[in-house]
Structures are given as C-alpha cells and as structure tokens.
C-alpha cells in the first residue's frame, strides 16, 4: 500500500503542481507550476508594499525640497492610490490562496484514487470531467471575476474609506496624507450636532419620500388598471397604449423635460394656471412645493409600470370567484374588496417591497428634477429635497467629504439590503424553486 495522497498533497503544498506531476498528470502540473511562478513573481514585487500601504496609507506627503538651491516639488505618497493598489494586491493574494488550496485538494484526491489502484486522469479526461461535473462553477468564473473587480472591490474600498479621514479641506492627497480614524466618522454623523441635524432631516425625508412615492404609484396604477378593465369600457387596447406612453419615454428625458414643464417663470403649467386667473406656484423653488412636485412627477413616471403589472395580475384572477361572489349578491365594491384587492396584493407584494427599496435609492427622480434644491440653510451641503443618496453624491463630487459619504452609503446599504434580502428569502421562487418543475 503506497501513501500517494499524503505525499502528493505535501508536494503540492510546497510548490503548486509538484503533487500533480507526482501523480503523473504532467500537463496539469506544468500549468499549476506556471501559475505559481507568475504569482511568486508578482507577490515578491508587490506584497510587502501592499501590507505597508494598507496599514500606514503612505508616510510622506508631497513637499517642497531644496535641490541645488531651487525649491522643487517632490511627489510623496498618494494615500488613496496606495490604498487601492494595496487592496488589489491583497485581493489577488486571496485568489491565489484559494487556487493554492484547491491545488492541494486536487493532488490529495487524485493521490487517494491512485491508492485504490485507479490510474490518474489524462489531461483530456480532466477537461471532460470539468465540463461534465464542474460546469456551473467554470461557467460562473467569468462573470464572477467581473463582479469581483467592478463591484466587490469598489465596495470594500468604500467601506474602508468610511474609516479614514479622507475629506476636504485637510486630508486631500497628494498634498496631505490620509489616516485611519476608526469610527470617528460615524460618531460625527450620528452625534455631532452640525452633521446629525442634516442626517436625521434627510433620513426622515428619504423615508417619507419612499413611502409616498411607492404608495402613490402603486395605488394610482391599480386605479388606472381597474378603470380600464371595467365591464363596459370600450377601446381597452387604445387606453392602455396611451397610458403606457410615459413608461416608454426614457426616464432621464422625461425628468429633464418635467424640470422645464414645472419651471416657475416660463413653464407651461404656471402659464395655464394663469389663464384660469390663478397665480403660478413655486413648483421647484419652495421647499414644500418642490417636495410635492417630485412626488407628482414620480407618479407620472411610475404609474404605468404598476398599471402594467396589475393588469397582468387581473387577467390571472379566476372568473368563477367573481361568479361565486355574484351568486352571493355581492356589490361591485364588495367584489373588489373581497376578491380583487387581496389577489392583487398577494401576488404583487414582493414587487411592492422592491419598489420601496428602489425608491429609497431613487437617485434620478430627485437629482435630475431638482438636484436636491431648494437649498436648505440649516443643512450641511444638502437641499430640501435631497435624499440620502443624492446627498452622498454631492458630498463626494462637490465637497470631497469622502469619508462622510461612505459612512452614509454604508448606512443606506444596510437599510436597503435588509429589506430586499428579507423580501427575497420569503418569496417562493427562492424557497421552493425545485417544485416548479
């Protein structure tokens, strides 16, 4: 009895691929060796700097130095670039460790098979094996890498930022360095009067907005769907076509368009109000009316979606339920309350929750329409209609308060992700998906 598996595993642990070659899988072994060689080359030049970078975030800011009597700018460490470079290197390290672990496991497994007397797979057989049994994992590899570098890495980076003092005016590289500060940013945001006043104010409006915009579009859509679906209403297709138009106009265009339509001075809405002898309203310039306007405009944009959705549900309600209700002498209203409404609510509940979560983050509706204005003097860099999400955008791009923005983003993310995860875990398509088949 030879002890192939332990020997192969140890060999692979020492240097990737050795175990495979020991197992007589030469092509696979050579591939692994090449991977480890490339990785070693990369890590020897980068890893030390990555660890140094992630702990210190740079040590020398750029400064003026006298060179032969002339003052010259010497570039120093750019903390943020160092941070992201280190992060990328560390991610590669994690990936490499995973590959390394898999390589040991593979050597161990093949070794065990050899002990039972089975010859190890040829390279061709290995490829076949992967295509047949590890198909899903290899299929997911490409999208996975994209998501890792363009979604997960940036998120980790942003979370890290929240724990630094990366903010204007004192800590903007390359002139100054950025340092780790722990939870200070969160403390400032939640407790320090100047920030917390804005935070709670904006948070309150965000929640009011999310509730109102979801409820108005949902029930508005339901009303329209029921109106069209009534017995006796003719040209149903035509009404549907017309009412769907706002949905077909690209959202960005319709919002920019509405901004002109509601223009206080020259916009047609105030013009028409003038014809009726009414004074124009400060649609976008008064804090209260601006809030009303964003809700109205959002109804215009959002009702068609709900309408389509609910019309779809209406067609699935079995006719005999209504017939049974009619036999019992139910009025139209009772039929609606007892049959239609519960059926609609039941099948659209998940969508409703997702719309609510989406509205919390509805950047376009606010930013393109009012840009968060009118300005609120009591707030830190926020206007009266700013949501958390537009506030954080302004903090990043206009004010360079990057750490504060990241902290807000984390809080926002926890709220929204909580909602949607709870919702998704509840839906049947997650729990009992195998039962559909």
């Amino acid at each position, binding site marked *: 009895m030879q002890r192939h598996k332990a020997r192969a595993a140890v060999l692979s642990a020492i240097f990737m691929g050795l175990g495979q070659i020991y197992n007589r899988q030469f092509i696979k072994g050579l591939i692994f060796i090449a991977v480890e060689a490339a990785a070693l080359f990369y890590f020897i030049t980068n890893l030390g700097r990555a660890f140094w970078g992630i702990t210190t975030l740079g040590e020398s800011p750029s400064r003026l130095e006298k060179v032969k009597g002339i003052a010259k700018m010497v570039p120093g460490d750019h903390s943020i670039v160092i941070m992201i470079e280190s992060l990328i290197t560390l991610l590669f390290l994690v990936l490499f460790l995973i590959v390394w672990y898999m390589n040991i496991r593979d050597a161990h497994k093949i070794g065990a098979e050899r002990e039972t007397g089975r010859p190890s797979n040829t390279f061709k057989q290995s490829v076949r094996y992967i295509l047949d049994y590890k198909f899903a994992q290899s299929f997911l590899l490409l999208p996975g890498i994209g998501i890792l*570098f363009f979604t997960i890495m940036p998120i980790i980076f942003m979370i890290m930022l929240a724990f630094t003092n990366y903010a204007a005016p004192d800590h903007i590289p390359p002139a100054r360095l950025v340092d780790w500060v722990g939870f200070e940013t969160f403390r400032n945001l939640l407790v320090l009067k100047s920030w917390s006043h804005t935070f709670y104010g904006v948070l309150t409006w965000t929640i009011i907005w999310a509730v109102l915009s979801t409820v108005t579009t949902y029930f508005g859509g339901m009303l329209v769907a029921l109106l069209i679906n009534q017995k006796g209403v003719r040209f149903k297709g035509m009404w549907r076509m017309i009412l769907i138009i706002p949905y077909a106009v690209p959202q960005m265009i319709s919002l920019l368009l509405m901004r002109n339509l509601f*223009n206080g001075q020259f916009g047609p809405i105030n013009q028409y109000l003038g014809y009726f002898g009414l004074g124009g309203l400060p649609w976008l310039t008064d804090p209260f009316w601006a809030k009303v306007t964003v809700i109205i405009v959002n109804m215009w944009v959002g009702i068609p979606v709900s309408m389509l959705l609910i019309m779809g549900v209406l067609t699935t309600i079995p006719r005999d339920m209504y017939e049974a209700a009619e036999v019992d002498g139910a009025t139209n209203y009772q039929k609606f309350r007892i049959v239609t409404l519960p059926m609609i609510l039941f099948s659209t509940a998940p969508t409703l929750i997702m719309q609510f979560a989406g509205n919390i983050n509805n950047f376009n509706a606010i930013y393109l329409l009012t840009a968060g204005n009118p300005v609120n003097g009591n707030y830190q860099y926020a206007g009266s209609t700013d949501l958390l999400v537009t506030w954080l955008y302004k903090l990043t791009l206009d004010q360079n308060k990057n750490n504060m923005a990241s902290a807000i983003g984390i809080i926002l993310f926890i709220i929204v992700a909580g909602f949607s995860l709870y919702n998704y875990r509840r839906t049947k398509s997650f729990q009992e998906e195998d039962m559909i088949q």
Partner: protein
Amino acid sequence: MITSRKLANFIRLALSYILLVILAIAAIYPALWILLASFRPGKSLYSKTLIPDHFTLSHYKELFTSPVYMFGTWYANTLKIAVFSMLIGVVLTLLTSYALSRFRFKSRKTTMSTLLILGMFPGFMSMIAIYLLLKEFNLLDTHLALIIVYAAGAPLGGTLIAKGFLDTIPRSLDEAARIDGASNFGIFTRIILPLSRPMITYMALTQFVGPWVDFIFAKLILRTKENWTVAVGMWDMVNTMQNSNFTLFAAGAVLISVPIMILFGFLQRLLVDGLTAGASKG
C-alpha cells in the same frame, strides 16, 4: 328598478370615461409638448400656444451641424457603447443564470443572495474606486471603460430575473438531450438559448437602453466632449443653458426617445412578462 340600475351603470361609465380622458391627456401632454417644441421657431421655453405658428426643422439641423453640439458624434458613441455592452452583458447574464438555474452546487444559494445584495448597493458609491481602478489601467475617457463597467454590472441586475425564466423551461428537455448524448454546452446552445428568446430580448433591451440614459457614470469617465454620450450631452445642455435654448434640447430629446419608444412598442408584451417574471412567479 331596472332603469335605476341602468342609470347607475351609465353614470359609472361616464365618470370612468371622463377620468380616463383626463389621465390620457396627462400622459400624452408632456410628450406632445416637447415634440411640438422641437419644431417651434425661436429658442425660448415660453410659448403662447401649444401648437406653434409654423414648423421648422432648423433645430434638428443645428444639432448635427453646430460645432458646439456634436450630437451626431454623441449619438454614434452611444450606439457603439450600447451595442457592445449589450452583447457582452447578455452573454454574462445568461452564463450566470444558466448555471444558477440548472446546476446544484454547494454555494449556490449564497451566490444568489450575494448577487441580490450587491445589486442593491448604490452604484455610484463605488464610483471613486472604479474611477481609480480605470485610471490605473489608463482607461479613463475611453468607451472601452464604459463598456466594461456596464457589461460587468449586467449580471447583478439581470441574473435573478433570467433565472426565474429559465426555471420555467422544463428540465425534462435537458434530460432527453442528455440521454441523446448532448454535453452541458450543447444543451445550453441548442435547447436553452432558443427557448429563452423572449428573455434574451428583454435583457438585451434593458441592457441597450441603459447607456442611453445613464449619465452619472458616463459623466465621470468621459472627459472630452467628443467622447460624450447623448445622456451627458443632453444633461450638459439643460444644465448650462437652462431656458436659453430650450427648443434645441427638445429636438435632442425627441431624437433619443423615438428609437427607444419604438423598441418599447414592439416589445411591450415581453416587458410585462419580464416585470412579473422575477417577482411573482410561483
């Protein structure tokens, strides 16, 4: 008795029609207004009447000839970005959704939850990081950068909806093909792809529309005017001149909206299916 019921019915219908007409006007009016404004002579936002005295095409002409508004270039840029990110994005989304729908492996549910949560992250929170990342690779101010970012983000939004659709394709079909000796890849290309054509169309459409309307990210990455997309250009137009050249904006808005509206018109049915597929199925 009968007459009173008839009367009630009549009133109900009459009220419904009145309401529908009001809603229809509200739905059409803004679109009609901007369409007519794009043919209106002059530049101002204000107009005495909805329908202009006479019609002109000069704003459309100006969009394409003026050296200040490189609308033709922007249009071509956007088309290029939209087509490429659509192609790559759809392929990536199909790969993930097929893997998640048809195979059972250890970390499957975790993968699904992760996709869902990541999709909820406010996109531009990661903007700075992506910006720096692209800078590292010297990709700033290129269209390739936008294509990569849009395509890499596609599986986040689309996978779960697409998976919901693929779940409804009976698995007995796969098994029959497997018995006939088809490989996993063969099943994917010969059975799954043809059957999920509605889903692919839906995904392609949403992927295609994305670059036309996304301006946040495009604005961050595309620095020079020749490289802009239409969204950035239009945003800039509204922002820098407010009301001083409104009719020009109107013409641009019409040119962007019309192709997208036509696409929506053709695919209305699919859109409804797509909307309901992800959420309420089963």
